[in-house]
C-alpha cells in the first residue's frame, strides 16, 4: 500500500511539473458522489475516501486531477486500472470534484476515543 502511495505521489510530482498548475477540468461534486459509488471507488477506499487496508485514503486533499487520472488509467499495482471505456473523463473529473469537497478529518488528538 505504501509503495502504491509513493508511486502515486511521485507520479503527481512529475505530472505537476509537466503540466504546471493547470486548472483541473471543472467537475460536479454532486455527480461525482454518484459516480464514486457507481464505479466502485468506495469498495477499497470507503464512502468518505478514508481508505483502509484495501486502499489508501483519497480524501481530504486528493491528488491533482492529472495525477489521479494518470494513476487510474495506468496502474499496474494492487488497484485495477479504469480505462476510458468504463470510466469517462467526465465521470473522473466529477469524482475528483467529489473528493475535493470532502471535509478535513478532525485532529486525532481531539478525539477522546483515540486517546483512551
Amino acid at each position, binding site marked *: 500500500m*505504501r509503495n502504491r502511495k509513493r508511486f502515486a505521489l511521485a507520479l503527481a510530482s512529475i505530472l505537476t511539473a509537466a503540466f504546471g498548475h493547470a486548472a483541473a477540468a471543472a467537475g460536479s461534486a454532486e455527480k461525482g458522489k454518484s459516480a464514486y*459509488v*457507481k464505479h*466502485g471507488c*468506495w*469498495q*477499497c477506499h*470507503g*464512502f*468518505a*475516501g*478514508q*481508505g*483502509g*487496508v*484495501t486502499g489508501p*485514503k483519497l480524501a481530504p486533499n486528493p491528488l491533482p486531477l492529472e495525477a489521479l487520472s494518470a494513476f487510474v488509467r495506468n*496502474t*499496474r*499495482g*494492487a488497484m*485495477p*486500472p*479504469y*480505462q476510458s*471505456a*468504463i470510466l469517462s473523463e467526465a465521470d473522473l473529473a466529477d469524482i475528483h470534484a467529489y473528493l475535493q469537497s470532502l471535509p478535513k*478529518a*478532525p*485532529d*486525532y488528538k481531539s*478525539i*477522546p*476515543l*483515540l*486517546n*483512551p
Partner: protein
Amino acid sequence: MAHKDADPKVGRRKFLTGVAAAGAATAATAIATPAARAAEPASAPRIPSALRPTMQVAAAETGTPRELARVPGTPGSDFMVDVIKTLDIKYCPSNCASSYRAIHESMINYGANKMPEFLTCTHEESAVGMAHGYFKAAGKPLMTLCHGTVGLQHATMGVYNAWCDRVPVIIVGGNDMDAATRPPGVPTFHSAQDINALVRDFTKWDDTPVSLQHFAQSFVRAYKIAMTPPHGPVAISLDAGLQQEPMRNHGGGKPYIPRYVPTAPPQGDSGAVKEAARLLAAAQNPVIVADRAARTPNGVKLLVELAEVLQARVIDQGGRMNFPRTHYLSAPPTAVNNADVIIGLELSDFWATVNSYTDNAANDGIGSNASRIKDGTKLISISSVELITKANYQDFQRFQVIDVPMVGDAETTLPALIEELKRAVPNKAAVEKRAEAAKKAYAEARARTKEAAALGWDASPISTARLCMEVFGAVKDLDWSLVASEGNVSNWPNRLWPFEKYHHWLGRSGGYGVGYGAPASVGAALANRDLGRFSVAIQSDGDLMYAPGVLWTAAKHKIPLLSVMHNNRGYHQEVMHVQRLSNFRDRVANLGGDMGPVGTSIMNPDIEYHKLAESMGWWAKGPIKDPAQLGPALKEAVKVVQSGQPALLNVWTQPR
C-alpha cells in the same frame, strides 16, 4: 462392525425390536424379506424419486417405536460416558441425531448431563465452531457428536478451519455399520463404510472402534493426539450397535479406561537452536515474526523475553495474541523490509511474510510477485506444523527456502533459544541502541495509525475505525476478550486496541471459511463466562448468515456475548474481486440495482439482524447508521451482557 461375542445373547436387533415393530405395522408391505425379494422377477433399475414419500415410508422415517425391549446389563454407551468423564471435557455442543442416540441418552441420564454438558446446536458447523472458539479462550478441548454422514458433512467446513488454526476438537460421528442388521431407509442413507474419510485430509487422526475396549483406547488416544502440539481436530466413528449393545467382558474382565498422560510437545533440535542464536546475536537488525507462536499466556511472556534480549522488533501476524501491542518493540508487517535476520515462529505462510503477491493481471493474468526483503537476509523458522503436513489441502502455502528450519513447537523451543541468546549476544550495549530506534518507530507508527483512524470519523455508514474504537471505549474497563473479529475491519483492533493479555485476542478462523465468527464467538464466550471475562465480538453480516441458529444456542444456554455487527451489506471480498475482473476486461460491472456487482451484495432487502437476534432470545438494537448513536447503544448493550444475556447491535458500516 461391533465386535460380536458369544454372550450375552441379546443383540441390538432385539433392542431395536420396538423400532422394527413401529415400522412393521406400516412398512410390512413396503419392505419385503430377503427371501421374498430374491424371488421377485427382475425389474427395471430403481431410480431416485422426487415424489413425496408414501405414508408407509413417512411413518417408518418419523414414527415413534411402540415398544422398546429392555437391554440387560450395562449399556455400552454408559461405559463410553465413563471414558469421556475421565478427560475433563466440560461441554458437548451438538445437533442431535439418531445414529448417536444411545450415547446421547447415556450422557444426559447416566452421566447426569455434566462433564460434558450437552448443548443444543442447530447446525453441526456451529457445534464445531463453538468448540473451536472455546478452546482458544479456555485452553481445553470440547467434543461434539454428530450424524456420521449428513451431520459430518455439515460440520466439515468448521473442521477445516480448526485444522488450519491448529485447534483440537474431538468429533464423534454416529454410524450404523452393520449392513445386515441396521434399519432400512433413513438410517441406511445415514450410514457409510468410512465416515472419517470425509475429514481425513484435515484431521490429525481418526479411528473406528469395534469394541468398547477399543473405544476406550481410541478416545483417550484421540484426546492425546489432539492435545499434543501442533494441536488439531480428531474424529471417531462410533458404531450405533456398539453404543447400544450391553457391555461385555474383555479379555476376562471389564474393559479398562486408559489413563491420560499428556505428551511432551516437540522441541527444536539443539544444534539448530544454537545456529539460530548465533545468527540472531550477530544480526544488525533482527526481526521476529509470530503467528501462532503463543499457545498459552506463558508463550506471550517468552516472546517478550526473546524480543527484549535482542531488542528486536516483533511483527504479530495475529493467529494468536503473541506479543503486547503496547510494547515499543511491536512492529508493523513492513518491519521485515530492512531486516538482516528474520525468525518466523509458527508462521502459517512464511512465503507471504517475505514476499508480496499483486493481483494485477500481469503475467497472463496470474499476477506478479516481489520480494519484500533485502538480498542475503537469513531466515530462521520454528514450526511444528511440518509434523502434520498432508498432501491434499494446500494449507501449507507456497514453498519458502529457509536457512535454519526447525521442526518443533515454538513456545516449547523458546526457553532454549533465549538461554542460548543470553550467552551468544556479543555486545549488549549495541543491542540496547536498537531499543531507542524501536521506541521512536513505535511512537511514529501509533501517531500515523491514529491519524488514519480519524479519517471519515463522522461518516455514515459508520467507519470501521469508529466502530472499533466505540466498542473498545465501551468495554475497556472490563476484563474484556475480543473473541472474534470477522469480515475485515481494516485490522483496527489489532492496530489500536491495547492487546496485552492472551485472551484479549483469540485470532481468526484459520482456514478463512466464512461462517466461523458467529459460532466461535459463542463458544469462546461460553469459556469466558466460566472464567469471569467479558466477551465481545465484531460480527460480519455474511458470516452470520451461514448458520445464524447459533444465536439461539447462546440464548438457550445463557451465554453472555456482546456481538457488534460490521454490517457492510455485502460479501465484500467478492465485491472487489468481481470489480477487479470487470476492470481487467474493460467491462462496466453489472450492479443489478445494488452497490456491488451482481451476486455480491446482501441488500434489497436489507436483513434486519437485530430482529433476527431478538427472535432467538437476544437483546438487540439497530440498524445504527449514525455514529453518534453508537456509543449510547453500546452502553445499554454492555449492561445487558453484564446481566448474563447475549446482546447484538446491528451497525451499518463502511466496507472495510
